[in-house]
């Protein structure tokens, strides 16, 4: 059956559509041919696919062929069966007849004869030539047609249709098409069934020795081809897939066969060209050569895929095919020409790309499929690129291939071609070798920029020199003989032939050896000594020239420029396609390779752009090792382009990279570039982010705490990643308030240049007063010449890890806390008790710092009216141990600790200068008391009170104020103002009372002295200077034996004076001394920390002695009423007593004891002025307090004055008193004579009442 192969292929090549046979019974075809063929190809034909499911075929091409034509006639029945796919799929019988008899006698038997062959699908088209106007003929035709139908159509199947030549029925063509399609469908089904059965039969024999793949192939491909003709591409593709599977199975399990691929031109992949070689050329005895046949199968599949409009699938299958085929080539590499595999892959990739891209239209597929397509295209380009580089390396262009990671990754993992024998040097190549050698010597390894020393990445799996020589050396002596033995035979068969046993290495050798034989000496020497590199290159080049048949590829390898051109083309192809796919990383990396070429060609602008992309890719994801490889290139471009900003930034980025990636020397070179540029004449300042190079942090520990309004100094650790010291002209650091990001950014600036050493540096910055809140470090900017460095990252503790590119996410630790305004210090009076008035007294001012240093504080003292400070006086300051704290310390009780906890009492004298005192240092943190000598001046004489004249005391009397202003804080920015009230008083308060009236007229005057101060008073002497009208009975001095009389605080003593009325001077004309003066000589011993104390010694006046203190108090003595004119009597109160809240009428009776003289009477007009005095705290007066009442001037006239009152407090209180202001006291006789009290009961329960609120104020 394999003999039919050639025939099969010719048939396949000639027939390309379904055939419909036309049995032209009545010679009608020439007239209707045009109309029929116009219907072709059929639209939306309904066919069945292999599984029997209906499928609409959009266009079904077909061809009408008359049965009488040679094409259908001259076939042998056997052929018909074998190539059944080309036989007609339907038979159209064309008849016409206008006579019933004629039909019956001639036409019908003939038709019967035609249609009796059951194999054929047939139907009859009755062509009516009758003109519609000709009723007769058309009626006849109808009759004949009716007869025809009755005879040939069955109920199951309509086999007839009628075609009116002049006016075809509207649905005729549809009817015709459906009938033809039906026929085709039925035929197709039957034939598919047939082929299927045959194939199954063959498949079952697959493991038997008789099995012949060619037969199977012909059947399978016939089926596939039939499907293809019927435009059932999907089914056709499936058949090819099955065919491929089956073939691979035979290849893998079968015996060793000739692989193929040694023919001229086989190096060019034929995977898109099924007709590359005739099948007869590749046939083995029962199968096909793998090399050609697999490509053939793929080509058929690819064409079907393109017909199915699935170029993406073609690309994806193609890629896998190339990979797997390349593996097969590797298996058979030893029999293939040198580097055949590489060459084939290159051509295959390019051919596949050309085919798929020409069939691919953008936007027709889903986006992800599109991306996949571009990825595949990119992959194919990339694969071709790698193989191309390998070839280029073999011919000696290796020094021009960038030793980048991507090239190294692809090339160094790619094994060398495993030719059975490494190509030998052609004999006439010595001049080429010399030239090559010169070239090798000339090319210096490209130095990296910045003098970076790095071992170049390998582009070869093993050293080529060794590999090539090893492969040659592997020829043992025995092999060598074989070589020569095989020679004669090989020379014979050196041409293209199908002889299978002939192995390819021999053929390769044949080429070279036939020449080497001409100069055997050269040959021998080249075998004996190892080949030099130049020789290897030349030998490879020579071998490749024999392998490669593609002129374009040969040209690309012919010179360096051509190589570069092709290399660029492939790289760009890969990169551009990757960019349109998901694989952007691949694309960007290849951009870097393009950039390298651009750089070499001097297109620095383009190179810089591409390098930038690559750097951004690596930097973005933190692949520093890779970045370190590319960044110097970018920097170099920028340097050449004079892009100072970019260059600086690149240098800084280089410095920022992990230290292990560069040697110290290299890093120093980067830094010197940075510094050099920074100080060069750049037009504009350049801003560079150095966040990973210079990091900064607050010092470990709690944040700096400041009080509101205080300046301070902030200490920050700056970690410099520069390899050497770097001098920053200035540095500035921003603080960000955590509470409010908008306004809280404050910049701190250093005033002077700062040298940063490598590693951590501590710098301090002045901190102006900040708003309250907490602050974190913002960013750091430094300036070097025209270069502005800016760092916004900060490390938490110590130096940052250099791979710390995500450090921004760390929560920032507050570095500074400025507390809300609060009391920082307290000034207070050291005590609250009264001091002696008119004496120099120590006023204690207690200064208590509240967790705040009062260092170098200044206190302004401004005394109010009635106070004076002697400037000459020394002011004392002593430390003050808070009693409450002391107690705590005592509780702690440990003796050893006590000393340290209870520091020594500090004491110091200070001077008041311009009303200011400066504090000593020791007082900055501890409480202290400032003792200021102050004298309160009061001209008033103290007045004694008697039982009659009550004491009127106001708290304001002895009050003086001292205004204090404390300036403190680091720059006296804090101010605390306070006004202290100090109470001054006389030492004593005197009350007097006449205790007894003796018979001899002497009066015993009791003087009670109340101590007013918290100090012990000692009375040394006391005497009374009596006013006029009184005299002492015993000379006026009290007995000395009483003295000294000691009065403890808040106690009182009494002294009795015996006096009598001075009767001699009773009618003394002028009252010179209206008041008596009590003189008391006393001493005081008190603690100034408590209150009144001994007056401060006034050094200027000097003579003052402690005991010389004199207290004087005025006492008013009243002579008894001698000449009463009016009697004033307090009328008794109701017996049921007084009660708080109850109104009561107070009554007084006024009676005239004697007549008034006329002058007096006229003056008073018979009226008396009265006034009711009452303590407002105890009473509420309801009526008029002051008024006139008429009282006749005659003796005995009387009147009662009543006033409505309400008592407000319970207890014994003084009742309201009635006074007569117009009348001299001496003329009024009162009853009761002295002050008296009345009893007020508490209010009845559950009654409400009011009392004045201000009573206590």
């Amino acid at each position, binding site marked *: 059956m394999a003999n039919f192969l050639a025939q099969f292929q010719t048939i396949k090549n000639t027939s390309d559509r379904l055939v419909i046979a036309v049995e032209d019974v009545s010679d009608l075809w020439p007239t209707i041919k045009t109309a029929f063929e116009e219907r072709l190809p059929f639209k939306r034909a309904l066919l069945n696919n292999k599984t029997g499911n209906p499928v609409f075929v959009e266009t079904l091409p077909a061809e009408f062929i008359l049965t009488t034509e040679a094409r259908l006639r001259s076939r042998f029945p056997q052929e018909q069966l074998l190539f059944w796919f080309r036989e007609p799929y339907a038979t159209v019988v064309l008849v016409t007849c206008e006579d019933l008899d004629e039909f019956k006698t001639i036409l019908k038997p003939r038709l019967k004869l035609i249609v009796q062959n059951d194999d054929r699908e047939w139907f009859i088209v009755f062509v009516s030539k009758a003109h519609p106007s000709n009723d007769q003929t058309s009626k006849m035709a109808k009759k004949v047609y009716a007869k025809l139908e009755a005879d040939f159509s069955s109920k199951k199947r309509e086999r007839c249709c009628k075609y009116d030549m002049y006016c075809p029925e509207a649905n005729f063509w549809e009817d015709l098409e459906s009938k033809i399609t039906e026929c085709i469908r039925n035929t197709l089904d039957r034939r598919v069934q047939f082929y299927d059965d045959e194939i199954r039969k063959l498949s079952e024999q697959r493991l038997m020795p008789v099995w012949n793949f060619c037969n199977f192939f012909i059947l399978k491909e016939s089926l596939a081809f039939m499907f293809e003709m019927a435009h059932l591409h999907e089914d056709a593709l499936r058949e090819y897939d099955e065919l491929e599977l089956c073939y691979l199975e035979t290849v893998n399990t079968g015996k060793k066969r000739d692989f193929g691929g040694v023919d001229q031109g086989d190096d060019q992949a034929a995977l898109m060209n099924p007709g590359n070689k005739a099948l007869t050329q590749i046939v083995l005895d029962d199968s096909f050569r793998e090399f050609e046949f697999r490509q053939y199968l793929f080509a058929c599949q690819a064409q079907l895929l393109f017909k199915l409009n699935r170029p993406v699938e073609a690309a994806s299958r193609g890629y*896998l095919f190339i*990979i797997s085929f*390349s*593996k097969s080539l*590797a298996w058979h590499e030893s029999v293939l020409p040198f580097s055949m595999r590489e060459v084939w892959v290159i051509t295959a990739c390019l051919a596949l790309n050309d085919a798929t891209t020409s069939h691919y239209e953008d936007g027709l597929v889903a986006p*992800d499929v599109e991306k996949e397509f571009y*990825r595949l295209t990119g992959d194919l380009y990339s*694969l071709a690129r790698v193989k191309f580089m390998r070839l280029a390396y073999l011919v000696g262009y290796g020094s021009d291939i960038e030793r980048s*990671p*991507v090239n*190294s*990754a*692809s090339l*160094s*993992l*790619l*094994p060398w071609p495993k030719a059975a024998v490494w190509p030998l040097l052609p004999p006439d190549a010595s001049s080429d070798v010399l030239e090559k050698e010169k070239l090798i010597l000339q090319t210096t390894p490209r130095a990296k920029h910045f003098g970076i020393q790095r*071992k170049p*990445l*390998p582009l070869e799996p093993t050293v080529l020199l060794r590999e090539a020589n090893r492969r040659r050396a592997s020829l043992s002596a025995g092999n060598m003989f074989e070589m020569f033995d095989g020679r004669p035979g090989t020379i014979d068969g050196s041409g293209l032939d199908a002889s299978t046993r002939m192995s390819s290495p021999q053929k390769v050798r044949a080429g070279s050896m036939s020449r080497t034989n001409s100069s055997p000496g050269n040959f021998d020497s080249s075998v004996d000594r190892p080949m030099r590199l130049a020789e290897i290159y030349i030998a490879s080049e020579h071998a490749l020239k024999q392998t490669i048949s593609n002129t374009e590829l040969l040209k690309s390898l012919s010179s360096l420029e051509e190589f570069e051109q092709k290399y660029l083309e492939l790289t760009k192809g890969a990169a551009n396609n990757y960019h349109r796919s*998901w*694989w*952007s*990383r*691949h694309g960007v*990396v290849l951009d870097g390779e393009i950039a390298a070429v651009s750089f070499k060609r001097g297109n620095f602008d383009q190179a810089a752009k591409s390098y930038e992309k690559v750097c951004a890719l*690596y930097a973005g*994801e*933190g*692949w520093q*090792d*890779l970045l370190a*490889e590319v960044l110097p290139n970018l920097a170099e471009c920028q340097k050449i382009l004079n892009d100072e900003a970019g260059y600086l930034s690149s240098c800084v980025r280089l410095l920022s990279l992990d230290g292990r990636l560069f040697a110290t020397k290299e890093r120093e070179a980067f830094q010197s570039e940075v510094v050099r540029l920074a100080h060069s004449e750049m037009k504009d300042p350049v801003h560079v982010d150095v966040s990973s190079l210079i990091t900064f942090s607050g010092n470990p520990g709690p944040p700096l705490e400041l009080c509101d309004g205080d300046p301070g100094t902030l200490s920050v650790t700056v970690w410099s990643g520069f390899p050497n010291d770097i001098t920053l002209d200035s540095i500035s650091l921003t603080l960000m308030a955590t509470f409010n990001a908008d306004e809280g950014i404050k910049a701190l600036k250093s005033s002077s240049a700062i040298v940063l050493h490598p590693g951590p540096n501590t710098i301090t910055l002045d901190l102006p007063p900040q708003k309250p809140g907490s602050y974190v470090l913002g960013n750091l900017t430094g300036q070097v010449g025209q270069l502005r460095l800016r760092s916004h990252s900060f490390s938490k503790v110590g130096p940052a*890890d250099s*791979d710390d*590119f*995500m450090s921004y996410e760390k929560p920032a630790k507050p570095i500074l806390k400025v507390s809300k305004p609060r009391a920082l210090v307290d000034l207070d009076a050291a005590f609250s008790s009264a001091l002696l008035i008119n004496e120099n007294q120590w006023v204690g001012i207690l200064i208590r710092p509240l967790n705040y240093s009062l260092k170098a504080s200044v206190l302004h003292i401004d005394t109010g009216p009635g106070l004076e400070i002697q400037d000459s006086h020394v002011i004392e300051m002593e430390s003050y141990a808070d009693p409450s704290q002391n107690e705590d310390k005592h509780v702690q009780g440990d003796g050893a600790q006590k000393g340290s906890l209870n520091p020594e009492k500090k004491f110091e004298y200070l001077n008041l200068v311009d009303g200011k005192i400066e504090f000593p240092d020791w007082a900055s943190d501890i409480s202290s008391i400032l003792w200021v000598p102050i004298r309160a001046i009061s001209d008033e004489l103290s007045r004694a009170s008697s039982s009659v004249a009550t004491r009127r005391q106001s708290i304001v009397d002895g009050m003086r104020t001292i205004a204090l202003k404390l300036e403190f804080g680091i720059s006296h920015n804090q101010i605390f103002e306070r006004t202290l009230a100090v109470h001054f008083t006389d030492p004593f308060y005197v009350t007097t009372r006449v205790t007894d009236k003796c018979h001899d007229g002497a009066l015993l005057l009791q003087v009670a002295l109340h101590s007013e101060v918290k100090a012990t008073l000692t009375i040394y002497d006391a005497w009374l200077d009596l006013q006029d009208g009184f005299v002492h009975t015993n000379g006026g001095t009290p007995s000395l034996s009483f003295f000294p009389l000691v009065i403890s605080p808040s106690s009182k003593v009494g002294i009795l004076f015996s006096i009598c009325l001075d009767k001699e001077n009773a009618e003394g004309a002028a009252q010179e001394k209206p008041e008596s003066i009590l003189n008391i000589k006393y001493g005081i011993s008190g603690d100034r920390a408590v209150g009144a104390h001994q007056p401060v010694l006034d050094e200027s006046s000097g003579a003052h002695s402690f005991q010389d203190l004199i207290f004087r108090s005025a006492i008013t003595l009243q002579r008894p009423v001698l000449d009463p004119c009016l009697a004033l009597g307090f009328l008794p109160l109701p017996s049921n007593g007084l009660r708080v809240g109850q109104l009561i009428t107070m009554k007084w009776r006024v009676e005239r004891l004697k007549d008034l003289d006329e002058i007096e009477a006229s003056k008073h007009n018979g009226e008396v002025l009265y006034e009711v005095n009452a303590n407002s705290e105890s009473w509420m007066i309801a009526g008029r307090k002051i008024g006139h009442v008429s009282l006749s001037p005659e003796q005995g006239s009387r009147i009662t004055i009543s006033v409505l009152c309400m008592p407000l407090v319970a207890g014994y209180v003084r009742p309201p008193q009635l006074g007569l202001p117009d009348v001299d006291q001496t003329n009024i006789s009162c009853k009761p004579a002295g002050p008296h009290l009345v009893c007020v009961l508490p209010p009845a329960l559950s009654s409400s009442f009011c009392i004045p609120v201000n009573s206590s104020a």
Partner: protein
Amino acid sequence: MIVCVAVVGNQNNPLYIQSFTEADDALKLHHIVHCSLDVVDERVNNPKKSGPMLNEAFLGLLYPTDNYRVYGYLTNTKVKFILVTTDLDVRDADVRNFFRKFHAAYVDAVSNPFHVPDKKITSRSFAERVSTIVKSFGLSSTG
């Protein structure tokens, strides 16, 4: 032979790369690992394609090149493990097994309280463990 193993963080940043070649050419392996992230990304972003593998950490063969193979493994936290081998005939089961062990070693390493998440793994014991795993790779199948 395994030539390189790598751990890549969820930001596609390298956390650990160890090559097992004698030559000083780790950089090319960096490149391979880095580029293989494209494939991982593609698989992750294209759930349709990964299909039934959706719930599996093992991503399988990433690259069908003809000279080396790259396998991937993706954890729930989007940490990627990459394996580069020059063996062209590797059983999937072996690779799976390798990744399982590697994952366990990684989990132990990052559980160290002194390890900063998303930082390079500098633990020496991790490196030792990884090299043991690499050495034992494929032994179970042959021996």
